[in-house]
């Protein structure tokens, strides 16, 4: 992407773009979209702390006079949410570490390794198509293989599948970041006698930290939220948070309070994580879109 910023006249350019249809449209759109995004989130927060009787009342209670932690206590004691939370965290962290390590290695090999042009193009296209791959297409065979390997309901099975689905994206992202590293830097390292592996870990990785951070967040979030394989491959022991949330939908209706509490427990870690590294995250995602 062309990156050209001129600070002196930026304010007016931004102003022109953001007022493309006049101030009424601008503020109307901004306020309605913010309310549209925020209200459901407020409702989730409210439902998690609302008393049971407020859940059933009509008209709905918008500003409850009393709050309760019962729903959280219920899910953590009766439903063993702690186990699911630990499962989710373990799967997401291990997947992120593995994906980042082998993904960035592969990306570096394809981007800067001594491979032929055709080989590079082939790998590039492969990872690209793989990125678009619908997960459901592998669901049945993966289920059968995992069943015969006795890996159903294990964390290992989930880590393997999540790594598989996140690898192409991470490779693609990191290839974009490695592309921006100036050749001179590598050449001078080469002249100092540093080999391929040494160059990668000591010269390249430290300066592509923003890319690593963005890849890590994307992988972590995707794995943390992953549902399709989680519901297929887990029965009880390896259940993750999304599976628990979906489990609140029963024939008798939804258990709103515990459901909202669990959703909130699921949402908060990724929100905190994303806000901490928002700049790198946005940059990485934009890179992914432009490159991918």
């Amino acid at each position, binding site marked *: 992407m062309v990156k050209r910023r001129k600070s002196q006249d930026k304010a007016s350019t931004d102003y022109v773009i953001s007022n493309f249809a006049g101030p009424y449209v601008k503020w109307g759109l901004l306020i309605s979209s913010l309310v549209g*995004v925020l209200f459901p989130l407020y409702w989730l927060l409210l439902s998690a702390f609302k008393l049971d009787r407020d859940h059933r009342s009509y008209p709905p209670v918008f500003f409850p006079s009393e709050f309760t932690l019962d729903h959280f206590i219920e899910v953590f004691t009766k439903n063993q949410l702690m186990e699911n939370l630990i499962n989710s965290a373990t799967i997401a962290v291990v997947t992120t570490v593995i994906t980042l390590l082998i993904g960035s290695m592969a990306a570096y090999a394809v981007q800067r390794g001594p491979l032929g042009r055709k080989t590079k193009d082939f790998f590039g296209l492969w990872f*690209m198509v793989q990125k678009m791959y619908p997960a459901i297409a592998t669901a049945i065979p993966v289920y059968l293989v995992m069943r015969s390997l006795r890996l159903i309901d294990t964390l290992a099975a989930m880590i393997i599948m999540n790594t598989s689905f996140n690898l192409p994206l991470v490779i693609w992202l990191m290839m974009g970041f490695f592309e921006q590293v100036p050749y001179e830097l590598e050449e001078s390292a080469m002249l100092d006698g540093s080999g391929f592996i040494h160059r990668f870990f000591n010269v390249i990785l430290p300066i592509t930290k923003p890319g690593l951070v963005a890849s890590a967040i994307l992988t972590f979030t995707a794995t943390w939220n992953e549902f399709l394989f989680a519901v297929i491959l887990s029965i009880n022991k390896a259940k993750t948070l999304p599976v628990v949330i979906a489990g609140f939908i029963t024939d008798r209706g939804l258990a709103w309070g515990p459901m909202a509490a669990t959703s909130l427990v699921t*949402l908060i870690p990724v929100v905190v994580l994303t806000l901490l590294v*928002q700049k790198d995250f946005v940059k990485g995602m934009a890179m992914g879109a*432009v490159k991918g």
Partner: protein
Amino acid sequence: MRLKKRRSDKFACWAFLMPTLIFLAITALFPLLYSGYLSFFRLKLNLPNQQPVFVGLDNYIKMFTDTMLHTSTINTLLFAFISVALEVVLGLMVAMVICSDSMWSRVATSIFMIPMIMAPVAIGTLWRMMMDASTGVLNYFLSFFGVDTIQWLADPTMAKISVLLVNVWQLTPWVTVICAAGLKALPQDCIQAALVDGATPRQIFWRIVLPLIKPVLVIVVMMRFTDAFKVFDTIYTMTNGGPGTATEMLPNFIYKQGLKYYDAGYAAALAIVFVLVMAFITLFFLRLRKKEEENVW
């Protein structure tokens, strides 16, 4: 000496690639081939120790007469086209509005990021709660405007609209964030020059901003469109394809064939066709994007 060094580099390079290649071969390529193999057999997953029976092309022929499949294909196509159109138009508009370096625009960006990092399952259940016909908050709001109780998820037409609505809520922010990043990278001098020449904001949008942002839009449309075909989590939690087959989409349909009706052979055949179609769409977009890149950059 030099040659030896280069050879060791080449070895290291392949060593770097190997873990990924082996991993993807086992976890992505092999299942796909296995799907291809299974698609020629009849295999019921619920019967233990059952041997697959070779049925030739039966599973593929079945697709032509399976009306449920036809319904869910049409549903998925409609869903993909409408949701992507809505999300891109709305997303770009909001992106332009928040295009600024000021404090409030950064706060707005942070807020917009929440739906896209929220677990889709949680989004589905949350909206299911708000769309409840009798106690849901949406109907309560609408009652102020004299609108009668809407059966958000129980009426076939409304259910289609509801899943679209939720998808728009979930993914418009994604479009916004990407487009906002694209807008910030626009060359400033074009717009400045147009301003000096006295162009109106409308002209600047149609003649300058839109053509310049088009490559980003093509990619956004490509990613959103291919993603829309994979919609599963929110459908599963909100309607599970119901009422009837009103919101049945292909991933959910394949899932049901395989893991609810235990017809592994048919599900595998469906998966193969699905992957082929997706690959076709991807290649189409890639070609489009290449053309776009040649035109602009």
